[in-house]
């Protein structure tokens, strides 16, 4: 029925569905509760922050999540392993390739076929994942600059990201949500001419990265805005389970690509940048952004090596089939598995429980890096100014699709 009323409005609906943690009547006379979001451009999606402020100082930040909750884990209870991949894409929609890679690796490990994957497939996977990592970091740095008032970097970053999206569209048919990496293989081999196009792009990109550093990283206004703001000490970061560029900015050289050495990463040469507190304190907002920019350089290095290998030892051949080890039936043996991988935003983990009788996971849980990274915000925002809250939130680099799943 077209005229059916869909939503019964009652005045206290919002209060009952998501009540504030701090009640008006319990506040001291100098304290005030300020509500930021859920519809606010600097929250990168739909996130509501309840800020308890004393004058202009933040005493506590209480994030209210769930506005983008799409029941990933509930859906995963009723879908076969290979049909979960599109849902995994939609978690971290800025780095879908990386999530797919982690998920596919996990299921392959459960099936015990992780050694049978052809080398060319592995190199293509790493290549597209690193391209997607570039795109994700471009968004992180670009939107961060826009959050704190600089508009140009956002356009420049989007321009460079657009090339990656078009290339990945050429590969998979979709700009953001690919469903390209399959369990045991790939949807297709790379299109003819992709390697050359990618090399051209890298040649184009390198001078642009220099421009990026001049435009944002060493910009005096940017440095003054972000240095010594939102400092996250290393021990606190570990205790909060913070991973990825945020943890590395706090000075711990931990990268699961090196530590676990999954896929073909052991064969590739790259460094792990960490924050050193060059412009202020170790682990401040500037360090987090700088680590991302350094990681862009490392990803470019990895892409170049992948392209080199894909055009020499693992060249395209006429009889190469990227789906030759794709299993017809995905039925892992019973047991519990936990698989983790390094996403652009941190450690993405999948917990699987297989019952050994069906091709549907009994339980599939995603350990989302944005969710865990966001939980530290009340700790690092405490004591800073309200104006700095947006700078701190942007430097965490959250994707609400992954926070809420």
């Amino acid at each position: 029925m077209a005229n059916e009323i869909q939503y019964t409005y009652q005045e206290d609906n919002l209060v009952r569905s998501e009540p504030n943690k701090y009640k008006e009547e319990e506040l001291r006379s100098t304290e005030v509760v300020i509500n930021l979001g859920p519809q606010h451009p600097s929250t990168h999606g739909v996130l509501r922050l309840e800020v308890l402020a004393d004058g202009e100082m933040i005493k506590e930040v209480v994030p209210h999540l769930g506005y983008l909750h799409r029941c990933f884990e509930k859906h995963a209870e009723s879908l076969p392993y290979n049909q979960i991949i599109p849902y995994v894409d939609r978690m971290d929609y800025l780095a879908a390739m990386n999530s797919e890679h982690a998920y596919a690796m996990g299921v392959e490990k459960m099936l015990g076929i992780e050694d049978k994957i052809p080398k060319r497939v592995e190199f293509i996977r790493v290549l597209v994942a690193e391209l997607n990592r570039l795109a994700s970091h471009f968004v992180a740095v670009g939107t961060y600059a826009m959050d704190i008032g600089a508009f140009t970097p956002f356009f420049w970053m989007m321009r460079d990201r657009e090339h990656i999206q078009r290339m990945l569209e050429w590969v998979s048919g979709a700009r953001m949500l690919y469903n390209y990496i399959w369990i045991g293989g790939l949807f297709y081999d790379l299109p003819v001419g992709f390697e050359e196009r990618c090399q051209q792009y890298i040649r184009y990109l390198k001078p642009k990265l220099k421009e990026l550093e001049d435009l944002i990283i060493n910009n005096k206004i940017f440095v003054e805005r972000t240095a010594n703001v939102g400092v996250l000490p290393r021990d606190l970061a570990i205790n909060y389970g913070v991973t990825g560029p945020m943890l590395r900015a706090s000075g711990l050289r931990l990268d699961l690509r090196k530590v676990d050495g999954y896929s073909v990463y052991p064969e590739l040469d790259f460094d792990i940048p960490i924050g050193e507190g060059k412009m202020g304190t170790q682990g401040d907002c500037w360090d987090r952004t700088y680590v991302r920019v350094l990681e862009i350089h490392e990803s470019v290095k990895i892409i170049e090596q992948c392209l080199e290998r894909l055009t020499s030892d693992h060249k395209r051949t006429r009889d190469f089939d990227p789906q030759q080890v794709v299993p017809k039936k995905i039925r892992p043996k019973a047991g519990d598995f936990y698989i983790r991988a390094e996403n652009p935003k941190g450690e993405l983990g999948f917990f699987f429980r297989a019952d050994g009788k069906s091709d549907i996971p009994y339980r599939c849980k995603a350990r989302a890096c944005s969710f865990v990274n966001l939980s530290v915000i009340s700790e690092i925002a405490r004591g800073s100014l309200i104006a700095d809250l947006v700078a701190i939130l942007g430097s965490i680099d959250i994707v609400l699709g992954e926070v809420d799943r």
Partner: protein
Amino acid sequence: MSAEEIKDLLTHTLEGMQVEVDDKAEPKGIKVPPSQIKPVLQELYQNPSTYFDMLSCITGVDNGPEENIMEIIYQLYSIPFNLQVMVKVQLDREVPKVETVSDIWKTANWQEREIYDLLGVHFENHPDLRRILLPADWEGHPLRKDYKHQEYYRGIKVEY
């Protein structure tokens, strides 16, 4: 350090400890009774030979009304030793409750809230046990195997 060695370590340091090794898990896991989970995790966190300083993930699993068991699974990671272990605890499904670990690892605060929200496991002494993903006035805990969603939420039909 393997799961067997961790088991030996725990039985040596803590008295009256009943730890089992779980071979079916990857990474290797240990099973602990619910009353002893807090001291076990505290020991694994503090002991200089294990030093599990990062709690990667907490998962809650409901095994359905027939088995009448709920499980909480802790993924621990030791950064200095590059060691992973899975610690499992089985709870009574009728009154699922377990001691919180959010005073050891602060990351447990949100992850336990998520499990409380989706599975209805009660974490004792948790500082802030509220729903996190679903609205505060949602009925039921969706990841339970016998979950039936409510018919209407605020006049919106839930069934699609």
